[in-house]
């Protein structure tokens, strides 16, 4: 099968997966206990006004009509209006998504820089303390809940040493005019360090262990011996020749990891009161704001499905040896 065919088939599969997820989501929200209308329509409201509101949100329609409307509005990116604030859901997403992306991309950059380096070191110093240390580090970061690490960091650096802010994205008196002005301000970076480091630490285990395993495989290959025979320094052999060849699976793994990380940031965002998308989803779920919960969840799921798709394509593009049956 040619690469183009594979890409086309994979695209269809991605759309089908998203459709199934959307359908599941629709079914789940209809099965939720409690009538959504009682939540946002206050008790004292006259019946006519109440009914008008219900009709406005389309909650009086038969289920199949609601379903068709739901799917078409998703396809046209019309995510409805928040029950809670009365604002457009797309607007809410645009407000919070950039905050999550900044946090996540910083954390990913941190995780992959250190993870890959430690992975190479672990393979290089196989059997020595360095390797044991790296593997134990990876084990620990997979075992401690990331929100607990966040609590400890806030406790030590925020309260005890008082070098980082306890929560939030900007200081109270600091009100930047635009997003760009905000993320380039020192105040923002000062707020970003702790959550990005904690989240990065959480994401670091995967690249570390993957890199170590790939390196061990690559180091057994002949060209490594040739490099050594040429008289290259061990450091050059490791980082310039072996590491480059071991990087491939990391790239695809990183694509998948980015997909999951957008949703995985929820807990870190909660601990540091970071106004991100995941935290907004949780708040919407807790106050039964269906449109916002649906919209944000669908976005998180789409990111995962899309990044899986990207990983599959990247894999064939980066490694010409991969052939699809």
């Amino acid at each position, binding site marked *: 099968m040619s690469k183009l065919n594979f890409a086309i088939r994979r695209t269809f*599969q991605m759309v*089908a*997966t*998203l459709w*199934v*997820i959307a359908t*599941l989501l629709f079914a*789940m*929200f209809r*099965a*939720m*206990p409690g009538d959504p209308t009682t939540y946002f329509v206050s008790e004292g409201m006259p019946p006519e006004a109440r009914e008008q509101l219900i009709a406005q949100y389309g909650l009086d329609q038969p289920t199949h009509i609601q379903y068709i409307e739901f799917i078409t509005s998703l396809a046209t990116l019309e995510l409805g209006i928040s029950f809670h604030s009365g604002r457009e859901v797309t607007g809410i997403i645009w407000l919070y998504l950039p905050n999550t992306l900044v946090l996540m991309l910083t954390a990913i950059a941190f995780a992959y820089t250190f993870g890959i380096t430690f992975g190479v070191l672990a393979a290089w110093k196989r059997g020595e303390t360095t390797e044991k240390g790296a593997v134990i580090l990876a*084990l*620990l970061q*997979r*075992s*401690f*809940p990331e*929100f*607990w*690490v966040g*609590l*400890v960091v*806030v*406790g030590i650096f*925020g*309260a*005890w040493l008082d070098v980082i802010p*306890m929560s939030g994205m900007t200081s109270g008196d600091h009100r930047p005019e635009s997003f760009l002005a905000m993320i380039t301000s020192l105040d923002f970076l000062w707020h970003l360090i702790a959550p990005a480091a904690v989240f990065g630490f959480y994401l670091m285990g995967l690249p570390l262990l993957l890199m170590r395993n790939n390196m061990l495989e690559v180091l057994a290959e002949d060209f490594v011996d040739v490099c050594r025979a040429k008289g290259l320094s061990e450091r050059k052999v490791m980082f310039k020749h072996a590491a480059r060849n071991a990087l491939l699976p990391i790239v695809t793994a990183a694509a998948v990891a980015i*997909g*999951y990380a*957008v*949703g*995985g940031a*929820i*807990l870190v965002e*909660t*601990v540091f009161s970071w106004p991100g998308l*995941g935290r907004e*989803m*949780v708040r919407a*779920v*807790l106050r039964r704001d269906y449109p916002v*919960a649906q919209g944000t*969840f669908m976005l*998180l*799921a789409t*990111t*995962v*499905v899309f990044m*899986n798709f990207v990983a599959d394509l990247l894999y064939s593009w980066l490694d010409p040896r991969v052939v699809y049956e």
Partner: protein
Amino acid sequence: MSQGEGTRELFENLEGYDELDDVDSRKRAIRLWSETLSEQWAILREDKLVVFGVVTITFFGLVALLAPLLAPNPPTERMWEGAMIMQWENPLWYGGEGSYLLGTTAEGYDIFSQLIYGSRPALIVGLSAAVICAGTGTMVALVAGYYGGRVDDVLMRITDVAYGLPLLPSVILLVAMLGPSFLNVILAVCLLQWRASARVIRSQVLSIRERPYVQAAKVTGASDWRIISRHIAPNILPLTFLYGAFAIATGILTEAGVSFIGLGDPSQVSWGTMLQSAWTYNAMYHQAWWWFIPPGICIALVVISGFLIGRGYEEVTNPALRGNN
């Protein structure tokens, strides 16, 4: 002539063996299983880290069982009358009044007792997630891998959809809809986490299905069920255990995360809800580290044990790993 006699004798012996086998088939099965398991246990026991994991899990298991005897106070009983919320009691070794080993929370609950009772939900979630996830995944893998064709296609597309769902957001959504109870957290984790074992074990089944002994069993007319249960399942069992061990970690960490967000079972104390209340009352700011450090350590200890046992099983599955580490 003599050769014919010999052949007949051979077949008679074979039949005799078969009869014996039938009579004692149950005993034989038990013997085979116990031999396999004790053989694997012997390999596992050599690894000190695995022993550490088993000992830790057993320790927490005993604590969970004996919680009412070990805990000095009921975990959900206020230690003072009157005000709902006040400054907490410090631990007795930190100048606190009363005899609380780790002090009390701001709502007046004995932290040490909560810590002991917290082992119950953690272990129940961990173990049931392990059994259900690994069990479901294995079933799906066996059926998909053995029957192949359309069955395989359908089951693997379902697995793809499960992979499209971000774990924590989906669990949060499900728990919010089904109601914040402990069983619902288990259910939500299990609905998603079977996917990993299903995909990996299926590929293993695909390879075992083509082995000569499976083909031979087919030729002799063994039923599908017999082939799956007798010839394929025992060979993938270590993989099932491996994924089960990893599911312990996912189960416990997810339960803690969901509780931390505030969707935990309100009737039960878990390490996650303890961390939630520590966070809510800003224990980090007041540096009441005895409040939020111990639950995190306990979570990590149980999770690490799961990983260590899993890693030990990986060596059983893949003998090439043995002795190198």
